[in-house]
């Protein structure tokens, strides 16, 4: 908690900095904000930023570096054969060291008492304070004691360093304030860094996803031939090995179901968006839009059950059997239709906003030429809103690819390569989930294939997105 208090202190200093910076700026300008380069508030922001940011950055770096530093000093105290053993032993030391802290608090031990603790009776006492240790070796104990002292010293140093940094920067900032100081530029540059950092979160997420998939994927390809995975046309996992794990039936199912879902969702969604933004009264729109958005919030299990109990049998009895296309009640068609309904708001709501953002002057221009409303929509508004609409459709497609529950209940779990839309199929995502949560042992290809599937899907959607970006670039119409 002491770190929390430290952070809080820095933040309070920053708040004070805001007030003081503002005041000081006004004072240097003789109370006349016109003589300042930036608004008084900008000087306040500047002071606050300078007081808080370097100190907090230092704190973050310190917190990251401290364990590394300590452990590099401790490591020689441990005898371990392999790096894996060492890291295990180190984890032990860490736990004991924290446990000693807890013990010191709960048993009110003095520092000397802690230093003189011996390893024999320690394990049960540590367990009593909630530390997970089986036994404590003398070696681990002495390392843990060293670990603990170092931690404590460094903690004090850290508090001092952070506090000092905050204070120095605070004073420095106040001294910098002069009427011609460009406080706005500084605070805007800081905001800009924040914005950049925020956009890097997305990059970091990608990196994280790839990293968390890649090593297990490689592991998978070490025990299962990549050629089979990418070229085999059958998917048939077995418990005792000898599985066929070809990705094609799954990919085909994914594509087929997503396409059907989009064929349902995109026209309905777009027409809904157009109707709501161009034709409907404000009142109708006011309730219809949020109502349709509820469709996006209904848990997918409800859709799944709807597909399983209502849509599936209906499609089978009215279409599949009369047409001689099979007697399966779970089918690509069922899942696609139901998923399409779920995706309607993804297309409609966002498109509606974008259509609404097209300037009225463009509509006027078209109406003034004697265009009907639908012509205006089709020829002027939709092209102008295209990038946004493509964005919305992509979002819907993304959701379609990632959906599991509807597919499991609507389309079944059979991996098949077939053109018949009334046949049961399944998707990559469904198999990722089921292989990951299955009963097979973790290190078997049947489980690890989930990671390979995830990574492959990732790469494939990446390619599709590149394509989409290219198309949007080509056809975008920039108004004004």
């Amino acid at each position, binding site marked *: 908690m002491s770190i929390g208090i430290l952070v809080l202190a820095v933040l309070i200093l920053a708040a004070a900095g805001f007030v003081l910076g503002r005041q000081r700026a006004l004072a240097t300008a003789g109370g006349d904000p016109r003589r300042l380069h930036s608004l008084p508030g900008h000087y306040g922001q500047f002071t606050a930023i300078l007081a808080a940011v370097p100190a907090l950055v230092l704190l973050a770096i310190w917190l990251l570096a401290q364990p590394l530093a300590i452990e590099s000093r401790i490591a020689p105290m441990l005898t371990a054969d392999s790096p894996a053993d060492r890291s295990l032993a180190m984890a032990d030391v860490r736990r004991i060291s924290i446990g000693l802290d807890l013990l010191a608090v709960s048993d009110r031990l003095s520092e000397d008492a802690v230093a003189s603790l011996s390893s024999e009776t320690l394990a049960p006492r540590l367990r009593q304070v909630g530390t997970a240790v089986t036994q404590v070796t003398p070696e681990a104990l002495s390392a843990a004691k060293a670990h603990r002292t170092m931690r404590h010293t460094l903690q004090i140093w850290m508090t001092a360093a952070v506090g000092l940094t905050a204070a120095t920067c605070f004073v420095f900032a106040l001294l910098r304030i002069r009427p011609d100081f460009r406080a706005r530029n500084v605070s805007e540059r800081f905001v800009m860094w924040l914005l950049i950092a925020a956009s890097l979160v997305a990059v970091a997420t990608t990196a994280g996803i790839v990293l968390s998939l890649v090593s297990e994927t490689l592991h998978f390809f070490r025990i299962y031939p990549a050629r089979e995975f990418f070229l085999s046309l059958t998917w048939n996992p077995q418990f005792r090995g000898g599985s066929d794990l070809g990705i094609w039936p799954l990919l085909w199912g994914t594509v087929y179901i997503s396409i059907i879902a989009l064929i349902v969702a995109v026209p309905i969604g777009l027409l809904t968006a157009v109707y709501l933004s161009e034709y409907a009264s*404000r009142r109708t729109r006011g309730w219809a839009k949020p109502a349709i958005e509820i469709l996006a919030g209904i848990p997918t299990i409800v859709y799944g059950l709807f597909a399983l109990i209502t849509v599936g049998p209906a499609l089978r009895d009215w279409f599949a059997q009369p047409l001689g296309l099979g007697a399966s009640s779970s089918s690509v068609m069922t899942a696609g239709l139901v998923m399409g309904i779920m995706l309607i708001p993804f297309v409609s709501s966002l498109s509606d906003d974008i259509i609404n953002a097209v*300037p*009225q*002057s*463009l*509509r*006027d*221009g*078209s*109406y*003034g*030429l*004697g*265009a*009907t409303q639908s*012509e205006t929509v089709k*020829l*002027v508004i939709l*092209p*102008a809103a295209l990038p946004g609409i493509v964005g919305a459709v992509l979002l819907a497609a993304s959701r379609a690819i990632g959906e599991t529950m509807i597919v499991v209940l609507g389309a079944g779990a059979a991996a098949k390569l077939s053109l018949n839309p009334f046949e049961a199929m399944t998707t990559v995502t469904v198999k990722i989930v089921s292989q990951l949560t299955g009963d097979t042992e973790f290190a078997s290809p049947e489980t690890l294939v989930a990671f390979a599937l995830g990574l492959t899907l990732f790469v494939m959607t990446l390619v599709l997105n590149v394509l989409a970006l290219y198309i949007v670039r080509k056809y975008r*119409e*920039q*108004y*004004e």
Partner: protein
Amino acid sequence: MDDIRFAERDLCVTEAKIAARDVQVHYGTNHALKDVNVDILEQTVTAFIGPSGCGKSTFLRCLNRMNDTIPGCRIEGRLTLDGQDIYDPRVDPVQLRAKVGMVFQKPNPFPKSIYDNVAYGPRIHGLTRNKAELDEIVEKSLRRAALWEEAKDRLASPGTGLSGGQQQRLCIARAIATSPEVLLMDEPCSALDPIATAQIEELIDELRAQFSVVIVTHSMQQAARVSQRTAFFHLGRLVEYGETGQIFTNPHDPRTESYISGRIG
């Protein structure tokens, strides 16, 4: 107003193309037009003049029901085109607007190519049978709007990338491409240089042979040059309406006189 030059009059037209009776327009609580009575004649250029904000654009937009799209805008009174009530519920505003074309005050090209901007009207009205005919209409309209020379090499580039005056001419070309019976032009030359202005004025004169043209302008000279009839609006009222010559030389209303001589605005 030394150099006002009067266009030859040929007001041998018998009946009103558009007639307005007691037209009132409200924007919410703002009473923007009050009791406007006016007859727009066939084969005539009618100029609307008046200080900024007096309701010229508003009235223009009433004539082809463009005000329908403005929320909070209410229109009362009677407006007829060829004797038919424009605001009759049976009237199809689409057909009305096809007959009554409009050039807006702020140029509003579509975010499409220059060609597609001009071809838009003919396409939706199905005026052409093939690409060649369409090309012809596009070229002719651009020529008449005095934009052909500047635009012919960049027909495929977006209309929004044109300069202000070019956009204005593009909008004129777009409006005449569908050959409307009545053309409403809201300050069509405001962003144009004198030569381009002269070309557009020539175009207007030419259009008059068959159609009626209504033009809003702030240039007394322009009104005098191109129009046969002039309407003077002031604070939402139609103060005076009559033959252009009479309005400029011998206005009945003192306000008209003050405006023309540059005393009120």
